[in-house]
């Protein structure tokens, strides 16, 4: 393999190896290389992040799980064990079932649409046309817009009374009455989902574009030679070529949509109208900070965590089985 000898980039690497000033060599011989042995090296290198995750994630999660088993109002003062009372209360609660359903719908829809839009955008950027770089940069803008700005702007554009979208729809005669984008419970989730997709599709676009670029031209060539139509090429060359990147992307998007998506929804609708956009994450926040039922909120959060983990395991297993 290249890289050992030779000029150019390797030259830097070569000059990087210490031509021994005596002190360093001597220290080196004395102390040895602490990172020489792979097991130890990986342990040392991973120690900081493991510590960080333990402190900031594992610890709080354990607290949350613990709190979910304490009686209401006691977690902040030491806690009083109350068994699975909160979990039972959640299971009986129609509001929980409602938010579970809403979350599933939101997750599936937003992930699928984000993926499709991202794929279409990536396919577009694979074509050569004038201004392609500009289009590529422009399509990244939604991803860099702060979530709150996205929520505020979209919220205003979709306002029932004063929003520009309703104005255009009515002025152009497409609808007779304003559409309750954020006030009609049947539509609100899609409106919020649209904002979410708008914000996230650049990630899908960039990922899939990278994967598309990695597909060797020869595969397309040989398919064409074999007489494949563009659609067949897409099905048999493109799609398999981006499969692994797609899986990783879909998993990430799914986990994020299920357990993390909060800001856009909360700022746009607050979980309303009448609970129509109250996903599990929103409901968890409301339990903890609006109704001050910390323990019940922790139970909700634990449920989300467990469901996400289960889903991930199933997904990975299914994928590995398919790959044999």
């Amino acid at each position, binding site marked *: 393999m290249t*890289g050992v000898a030779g000029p150019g980039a390797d030259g*830097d*690497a070569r000059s*990087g*190896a210490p031509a021994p000033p005596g002190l360093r*060599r001597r220290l*080196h011989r004395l102390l040895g290389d*602490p990172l020489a042995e792979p*097991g130890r*090296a*990986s342990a040392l*290198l*991973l120690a*900081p*992040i493991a510590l*960080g*995750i333990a*402190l*900031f*994630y594992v610890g*709080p*999660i354990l607290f*949350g799980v613990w709190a979910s088993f304490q009686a209401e109002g006691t977690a*902040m003062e030491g806690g009083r064990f109350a068994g699975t009372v909160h979990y039972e209360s959640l299971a009986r609660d129609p509001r929980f079932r409602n938010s579970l359903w809403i979350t599933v719908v939101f997750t599936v829809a937003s992930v699928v649409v984000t993926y499709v839009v991202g794929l279409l955008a990536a396919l*577009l950027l694979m*074509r050569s046309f004038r201004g392609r770089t500009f289009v590529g*940069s*422009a399509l*990244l*803008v*939604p991803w*860099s*817009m*702060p979530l*709150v*700005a996205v929520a*505020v*702007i979209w919220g205003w554009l979709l306002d029932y009374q*004063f929003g*520009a979208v309703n*104005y255009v729809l009515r002025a152009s005669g497409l609808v007779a009455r304003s559409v309750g984008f954020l006030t009609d419970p049947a539509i609100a989730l899609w409106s919020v989902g649209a904002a979410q997709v708008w914000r996230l599709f650049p990630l899908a676009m*960039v990922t899939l574009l*990278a994967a598309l670029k990695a597909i060797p031209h020869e595969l397309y060539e040989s398919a064409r030679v074999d007489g494949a139509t563009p659609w067949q090429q897409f099905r048999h060359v493109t799609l398999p070529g981006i499969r*692994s*990147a797609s899986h990783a992307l879909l998993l*990430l998007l799914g*986990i994020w949509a299920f*357990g*993390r998506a*909060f800001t856009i929804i909360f*700022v746009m609708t607050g979980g309303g109208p009448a609970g129509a956009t109250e996903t599990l*994450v929103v409901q*968890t*926040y409301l339990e*903890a900070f609006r109704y001050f039922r910390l323990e019940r*909120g922790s139970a909700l959060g*634990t449920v*989300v*965590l467990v469901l996400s983990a289960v889903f*991930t395991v199933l997904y990975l297993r299914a994928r590995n089985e398919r790959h044999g």
Partner: protein
Amino acid sequence: MSGTAERSRHARLWAVVGATVVLVVLFPFYWMLLTALRAETSVFTYPPNLWPTDLAPHLLFQVFGKTQVLRWLANTFIVAGVATLLVVPVATLAAYALSRYRNRRVSYAALLIVVTQMMPPVLLLVPYFIIFRNLGLLDGLLGLILANFAWTLPVTAWLMRAAFDAVPSELEEAALVDGCTRLGAIVRIAVPLAVPGLVAAAVFAFIASWDEYFFARTLISDNRYWVASVGLGSFAGDNSVSWQQIMAVAFFTTLPPVVLFIFVQRAFVENMSAGGLKG
């Protein structure tokens, strides 16, 4: 090979498609800019004016006097900057290990990272709130910095791993043979070669901290320490602030990430294309 004429016809078609897509996708951004540049519009102006008329660009900068946006931006720079500075070394070392070693420890670490993405933010928020309160960290930016450090650490490590994956490990092996320490190899060989991807991941972390609203809203009660996202969110329901001001603040809040991002997007795309998200 298709003929040149056909190809240029296709090129024109795609250019048109591209332009249309950009127009549709960027409309909200356009709306924000338009409103920010317009004279004081009442919240309730109806019908709304969609065309770039009645512009008053000087109003854009008046918002600095009328709101606290400069202070918010400064706070946000501090929080995002310090959090990113803390994340980079930790994530870089971890990413190197994830990329170069294959053992149980590494598998556990990778699994741990994936699991952190599944945690709903609220589960983190309440314990953070309690701990920070007891440590007196609620009065100031440090608590938020730590929260953002935690928030961005796993994903940054994941992205940096992809950057290291793109750099062949033979170079470091060669250096080791020559007597370099592993750490030396990391610092002098691997990192410089992986810099584009590392920088892209760091920018990602910066932008994620810049954006962050959820922790900021709850962990900071003193409005002297508000970050931009909280300041912007505070306008919701505040009818004394005109939409021009809201959108102007939104614009200034958006500008740094957009600039950083466009600046880095080439590296980002290149980084990901080098076998990033496989498997």
